[in-house]
């Protein structure tokens, strides 16, 4: 599903720039639940942005479903984000002006769904994350856990095969964290590939595999994943 080779990302600034990623090589199979852990500033979010096609690596290659990200046009990247990738952010990133239902409808709208299909699908998704009856509420009227569940429903709108979660429980209390984690585990159980960035070792332990990062490099691969063809770090 995901194959990264020698990924580098250097942010501009200073004389030589600031390296966020320094040569990551790994792969993730379909249906895996991978937790990326590591201290702040080690490049976890940068990696997630690259995996989510929100950012481009400075060098190295990244292939998603066999498609080389470097060769994608901006529109192809948008389309891939729309149909293949779902995002869940620590800060939820919901549009407060819109209701929970409308937030979930957004990706469906960009995908050109009809009004009725869009609403039906959004209702189903909200019910699935346990928010039945709260469709009309705006994010400001919902608790943190509920907001994150709306964000998950939004991420699932176009049935992506890859879910990228950036500290999805970072702003939540422990019971909400558990609920969100249960949903993510459920999705992985249904065959979805989930890549989750987290600080929380407990949550990371529930993932199928951990990628520990430090200073832009992979410190140690662990977990139940099979070793990759070229990289021993899986």
């Amino acid at each position, binding site marked *: 599903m995901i194959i990264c080779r020698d990924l580098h990302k250097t942010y501009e600034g200073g004389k030589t720039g600031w390296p966020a990623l320094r040569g990551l090589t790994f792969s993730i199979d379909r249906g895996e639940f991978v937790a990326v852990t590591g201290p702040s500033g080690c490049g976890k979010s940068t990696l997630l942005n690259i995996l989510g096609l929100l950012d481009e690596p400075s060098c190295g290659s990244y292939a998603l479903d066999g498609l080389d990200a470097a060769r994608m046009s901006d529109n192809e990247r948008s389309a891939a984000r729309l149909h293949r990738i779902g995002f869940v952010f620590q800060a939820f*990133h919901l549009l407060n002006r819109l209701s929970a239902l409308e937030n979930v409808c957004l990706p469906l709208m*960009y995908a050109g769904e009809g009004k009725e299909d869009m609403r039906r699908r959004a209702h189903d998704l909200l019910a699935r994350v346990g928010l039945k009856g709260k469709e009309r509420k705006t994010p400001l009227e919902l608790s943190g856990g509920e907001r994150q569940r709306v964000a998950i429903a939004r991420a699932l709108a176009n049935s992506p095969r890859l879910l990228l979660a950036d500290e999805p429980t970072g702003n939540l209390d422990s019971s909400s964290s558990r609920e969100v984690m249960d949903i993510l585990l459920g999705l992985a159980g249904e065959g979805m590939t989930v890549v989750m960035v987290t600080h929380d070792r407990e949550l990371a332990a529930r993932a199928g595999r951990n990628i520990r990062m430090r200073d832009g490099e992979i410190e140690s691969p662990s977990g139940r994943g099979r070793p990759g063809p070229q990289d021993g770090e899986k």
Partner: protein
Amino acid sequence: MTRALYNAARTGLSEILAHKTRSTLSFLAIAAGSVVFIDAFSAIVATYARLESQKQVSGMARMKISQNHSQTWSNPDDYVAPPVITYDDVLRLRERVPGLFMVSPEADSWRNVMEYDGHRVVARVAGVTPEWRKRDFVYDLKGRFLDWHDVDQKLRVCVLIRPAPPEPANAFFKSMRKKYDFMGGYDMLVTHNDLLGRTVKLDGINFTVIGVLDELPPSRKPPRIWWSGSDYKVLAPVTTLMHYNILRSHDSLDVAIDAGDEKGFDEAMRLVRNFLKVRYGDEDFFVVENQMDAIKESMARNISSSLVTISLGMLAFIAGGIGIMNVTLATVFARTKEIGVRRAIGASRGDIMLQFIVEAVMLGLIGGLLGTALGWFWGVPAKVMLGMTPSPIKVWMPLVSVFIAALTAFVFAIYPAWVAAGLKPAEALRAE
């Protein structure tokens, strides 16, 4: 696409409503542009409408012969008094240039005394023939007009011109008129007395009033650009007035001519000049004025002043456009994170551009509609209240003005929308 437009419009509307002050300020400038545009457009339309009605009333093939007085100011030793055009000359012209639609001799005396029932008033008396009514006849006639019998027999008959009653809407001018008595004694006399069939004295000589011409009220009166003789108060056969010395017989007549149609005009002009040359030895004794030239000149003046107004409207639109660009840019920066979120969940650059452009165009549309409403209010009810002539506002004017407003907004939104679409998703998401 329709769905995307609809959603962009919805988002735009909610943004506009969420920032009422900012939105209002940005579409006010556009509205100002619309007001000026509508005013300028209606001024141009009014100019053409006036020309159209002039064509109807005055004819488009008009010329006028009068004595050339420019020599009066030259060296006194060289001065040759221009010859006088007499009634006989006019009859001869008629004979020599037979195709003319109208050959109307006119002569007037600036100050005559009209007496009736002990009232003595000053009236401007003009000598004319029945041809006079062929053009520029904007009156309601009571009784009859002068006929050839009156002229040939030099009968002492006259037609009085009665001023139109003041416009009812014009309360202000009405009170001014009452206060300062703008109406002269003649106007008062003919307004308050029905003189049809009565006898009046003109410079001491009895004349029978055979007709009364009621001037049309200003609202129904077709406008005239050039000469018109509209200040005449009393019309009588030119022959009679000459005979009784009310007009001095050595006064030259002016001759108003209508060639009939525009096609025959140049030929008629040539024939008339030729006639003058043959009869008086030198056509330069006379001036042959061409009404078309006067109309064209007046049109050009009107149009160029409208163009000035239109360019002011353009400037207002540009200012409004810059306002919209500014607001849209501000919106882009205020909503950078939202742009990042939308990009992250799959919106393409085109989707983002569309959203900001639609939003700006909506501002433009609202501004255009507001401006149209204000333009109409200024053009019709406000002008009527101020006693001005209401502007003719056609259906296409609001449409064009709203279209230009929306187009301006569209053009000026392209840059901010492009900036928005060009934001890198990852960086936009990090924005605070």
